[in-house]
């Protein structure tokens, strides 16, 4: 209904409307600069200080700073900037450089004299004759050591091994680093004369230098055993702080983790004895980029200059303890007096730029798999790297051919028309009238239905659609059933290879079946134990047994990952203490699968236990009495009364549990990580890897998800039919 509005009011409304429309235009005109970063703690403090200083000096320019959590950062940049909603300037690492360029997210910045930066860092940001960002800080691996254990740091790798061998004892390691991770292996690769790229193409891992670096890794971990395998960052810190690691290879961030009472010192990485070359780590950079959507306005240029100034760099060095890129600051007495910063500056002379080629995103994971097998001695470097090469080739293979959208649209239309026809025929004559007569009821559920449609229906349909596309560079390309053909055709690996879809599917089914069997079995046993009313402290036991379920499963998964650690885990310690030899849990399919299974059984049995306990309590006690009078012993009472009466209550839980387990991402992804060689991956972790760890093959991942969806749909349809059949049999 329209309210009568007086002429005076009209004018006021019109004025408000015009100003509202004018506001955005005005904001664009003003000198506002938006800056994104993902710094935290001291680094964020240093940045804030620099921005505050800039605001004081340039009151006419408004600066808006947004701190974005690191995990979501690249993704957020990728989506925001093309829509014009992103920052003008942003600070990000340099490993996405080429990706940013290819997606046209960044433009070469201006307004700063780059001679203030170390030329090596400028070079790392220069591509196609342009410098694509300003280096703010850099990070490189160096050698930390405990002064109470190591007198003089090793100059060569032979020294390193000799010192480490002397300091290695039960539960103590001479030299600790995250040996399975490519970033930490790179210094050896370069030290042995290897390279990642030869011009534009990815270097095969099989070069003699690469193999020599693999041999060196094998020596450290498998032959000399001075370096533990499979250690995570937090464990490195703990070992060092407790005096169980004499030397550690780590980055500058490690300093903040060292305990106050540990006498530490830092040295450059040693020279590789075989080649005489220094072990050269990657230099990873914090870079100030200019968004491609931002105009090189005076404000943007002024802020770029201020943030990269020597004064700001000195603040970063002092407050954030960051090794900064400005040459002048590197020689500042404060920096030179700081043990860590001075050593970073020294190490910088022997670094390699972080590879920024998109194909590297595909290479990391196969490379990591290879390193893991080498460090455990399960494969020779030659064989492990050969496998990795093959894997990278498969991952980087050309996308499916573009398909004709028209044919598919026609087919989809036909399917929709046929589907509607069938639905209409099935619909009884009165259905529409029925709907109309209960209009109020439908109106009541409409908001919920709309919510479901928006939150579940639309994303689902988008996912279905995405399965028919493939992502290439910056745009989607229609490939029809190409993704499905590639998945189901298993064209790259034989179906028996751990890398094939069918192997993963069989593993997933095995995983699901064995989990559910153990969940139900253990849950049943515990429920029976907890059932008797005379048991004292039943309530306490019940709560204790439900606890594993109440703890977020990724935390449990990480704890179990630690428990299963080959050298340092509690489970092997227990095995050794009772006279068994330690098990390398993630070397073989069976132990790795068993580790995953143990974790998920721990997580899953409480749910079944609670369900079964409820069902048990619903069985009248006099049935058991009647059975006793009828002469049934305990086993007969269990099989003839307990089982058949608990069974029906258990079916929904089993169906639900099956679907949960089938898609139990966290456990597989965090505990075994698919090791060995992806053999313990399940379908959903594979889908994840395609989407987020293999250059964003979203279409392929969506197709994978659709296949998973189809399998689960089939499963629930089968169960439903089975149950309906049983119910019908019971009714007759």
């Amino acid at each position: 209904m329209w309210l009568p509005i007086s002429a005076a009011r009209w004018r006021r409304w019109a004025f408000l409307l015009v100003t509202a429309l004018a506001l955005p235009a005005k904001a664009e005109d003003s000198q506002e600069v938006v800056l994104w970063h993902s710094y935290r703690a001291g680094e964020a403090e240093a940045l804030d200080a620099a921005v505050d200083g800039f605001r004081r000096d340039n009151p006419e320019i408004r600066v808006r700073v947004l701190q974005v959590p690191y995990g979501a950062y690249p993704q957020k940049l990728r989506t925001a900037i093309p829509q014009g909603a992103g920052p003008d300037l942003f600070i990000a690492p340099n490993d996405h450089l080429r990706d940013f360029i290819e997606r046209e997210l960044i433009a070469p910045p201006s307004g700063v004299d780059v001679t203030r930066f170390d030329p090596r860092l400028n070079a790392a940001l220069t591509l196609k004759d342009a410098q694509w960002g300003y280096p703010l800080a850099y990070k490189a691996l160096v050698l930390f050591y405990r002064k109470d254990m190591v007198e003089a740091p090793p100059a060569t790798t032979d020294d390193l091994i000799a010192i480490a061998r002397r300091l290695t004892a039960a539960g103590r390691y001479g030299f600790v680093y995250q040996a399975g991770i490519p970033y930490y292996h790179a210094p050896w690769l370069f030290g042995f004369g290897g390279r990642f790229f030869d011009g534009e193409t990815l270097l095969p891992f099989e070069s003699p230098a690469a193999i020599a670096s693999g041999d060196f890794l094998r020596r450290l971990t498998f032959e000399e055993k001075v370096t533990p395998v499979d250690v995570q960052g937090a464990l490195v810190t703990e070992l060092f702080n407790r005096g169980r690691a004499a030397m550690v290879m780590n980055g500058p961030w490690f300093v903040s983790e060292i305990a106050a009472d540990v006498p530490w010192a830092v040295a450059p990485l040693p020279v590789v004895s075989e080649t005489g070359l220094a072990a050269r780590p990657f230099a990873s950079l914090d870079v100030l980029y200019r968004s491609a959507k931002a105009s090189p306005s005076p404000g943007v240029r002024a802020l770029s200059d201020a943030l990269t100034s020597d004064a700001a760099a000195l603040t970063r060095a002092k407050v954030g303890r960051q090794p900064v890129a400005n040459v002048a600051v590197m020689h500042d007495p404060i920096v030179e007096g700081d043990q860590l910063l001075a050593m970073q500056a020294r190490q910088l002379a022997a670094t390699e730029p972080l590879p920024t080629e998109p194909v590297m995103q595909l290479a990391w994971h196969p490379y990591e798999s290879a390193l893991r097998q080498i460090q455990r001695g399960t494969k020779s470097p030659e064989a492990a790297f050969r496998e990795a090469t093959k894997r990278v080739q498969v991952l980087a293979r050309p996308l499916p051919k573009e398909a004709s959208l028209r044919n598919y649209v026609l087919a989809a239309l036909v399917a929709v028309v046929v589907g509607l026809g069938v639905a209409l025929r099935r619909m009884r004559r009165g259905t529409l009238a029925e709907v109309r007569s209960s209009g109020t009821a439908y109106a009541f559920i409409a908001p919920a239905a709309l919510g479901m449609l928006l939150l579940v229906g639309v994303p689902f349909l988008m996912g279905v659609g995405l399965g028919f596309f493939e992502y290439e560079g910056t745009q989607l390309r229609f490939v029809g059933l190409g993704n499905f053909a590639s998945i189901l055709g298993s064209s790259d690996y034989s179906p028996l290879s751990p890398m094939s879809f069918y192997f993963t599917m069989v593993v997933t089914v095995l995983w699901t079946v064995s989990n559910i069997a153990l969940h139900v079995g253990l849950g049943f046993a515990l429920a029976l134990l907890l059932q008797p009313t005379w048991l004292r402290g039943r309530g306490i036991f019940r709560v204790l047994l439900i606890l594993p379920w109440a703890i977020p499963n990724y935390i449990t998964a990480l704890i179990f990952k630690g428990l299963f650690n080959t050298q340092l885990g509690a489970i092997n310690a227990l095995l050794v203490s009772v006279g068994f030899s330690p098990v390398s849990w993630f070397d073989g399919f069976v132990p790795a699968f068993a580790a995953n299974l143990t974790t998920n059984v721990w997580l899953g049995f409480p749910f079944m236990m609670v369900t079964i306990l409820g069902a048990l309590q619903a069985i009248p006690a006099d049935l058991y009495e009647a059975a006793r009078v009828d002469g049934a012993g305990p086993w007969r009472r269990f099989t003839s009364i307990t089982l058949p009466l608990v069974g029906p209550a258990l079916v929904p839980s089993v169906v639900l549990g099956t679907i949960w387990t089938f898609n139990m991402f966290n456990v597989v992804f965090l505990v075994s990580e698919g090791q060995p060689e992806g053999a313990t991956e399940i379908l959903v972790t594979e889908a994840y890897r395609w989407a987020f760890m293999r250059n964003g093959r979203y279409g392929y991942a969506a197709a994978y998800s659709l296949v998973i969806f189809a399998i689960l749909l089939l499963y629930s349809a089968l169960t439903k039919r089975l149950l309906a059949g049983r119910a019908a049999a019971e009714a007759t």
Partner: protein
Amino acid sequence: MASIDLKTVTKRYGDVTIVDGISLSIADGELVVLVGPSGCGKSTLLRMVAGLLAPTSGSIHIGGRDVTHLAPGDRDIAMVFQSYALYPHMTVRENIAFPLAVRRRPRAEIDGRVNDVADMLGLRHLLDRRPRDLSGGQRQRVAMGRAVVREPAVFLFDEPLSNLDAALRTRMRAEIAELHARLGATMIYVTHDQHEAMTLADRIVLLDKGHIEQQGAPLELYQRPRTQFAGEFMGSPSMNLLPVDKRNDALASPHVRVDRGALRLTTWEQLPEQLVLGVRPEAFRLADHAGAPHRLDVQVAWIERTGSDSFVHGKAGETPVVARVSAAEGERLQAGGTVTLAFETLSVFERDSGQAVAHC
């Protein structure tokens, strides 16, 4: 077939004694009804006979064999539960066959006996149904079938009819009586319903607070209750209790008087001063009948007409009185009026101890 002997059977839970040293012998083929108010220990006693509960002390013998420590299945008994305790996931056939299947009897024998029992109980057409598809009476019959099929020496019934409606209860009672007559088995039947006890029992054992108050043939309990409790518990409506004092040659109150001569007592002198007269409702007549020596004036409160009889509810002074008269007599009475009732048979109880001193 077997006799049952309970020797000083006691069941205690902590400080609470549920069954207090009961000794009881049941002859082979006898149908004994344990009756009493709730909490008297009758179900506990039955469950000890079944072996579902272990006695705190005492022993239980079935057919001369000490079964005190045997499992229920080894006692050669069958039991019918108040809730029927049918296995809900089994068909009627499977329910009845279960005791035989547990004992691994040959298939053919099981089938034959299940069919025989089904015929006997009229369950033939229900054999493939499940308990939830049966009516209460049918379930009851299945429970009996499950008990009968094994041909046990002893049947135990734990309030088997209390979940049924009145008409069905009467019919099932008749069926149980018939079953007893046909099988000739020893049976113990627990109920809180004295009517059921009266109609079914060879012998009634009346329990109160964990001990036997009185036992005997139904009519004996009814006519010669040994205590005021027994007199009150048996019979419905309950026995009228009229407090009286001993006078020189009569027991009297302001409303009633019974001459010493009518009581035919040998020990008048030993009677205490305070007594209670127990008069069954059906012992009353309207006073215009000849031949009833004792009289009672009653203020009529209301008249309950059941069709065949009329129950007169009223008060003699402060004492409530219920009298059964014929339907025709009931027609002549009016609420609010006064009627003089006459009676001949009565019991006399000591007011303090509740012990009966005379029945006449």
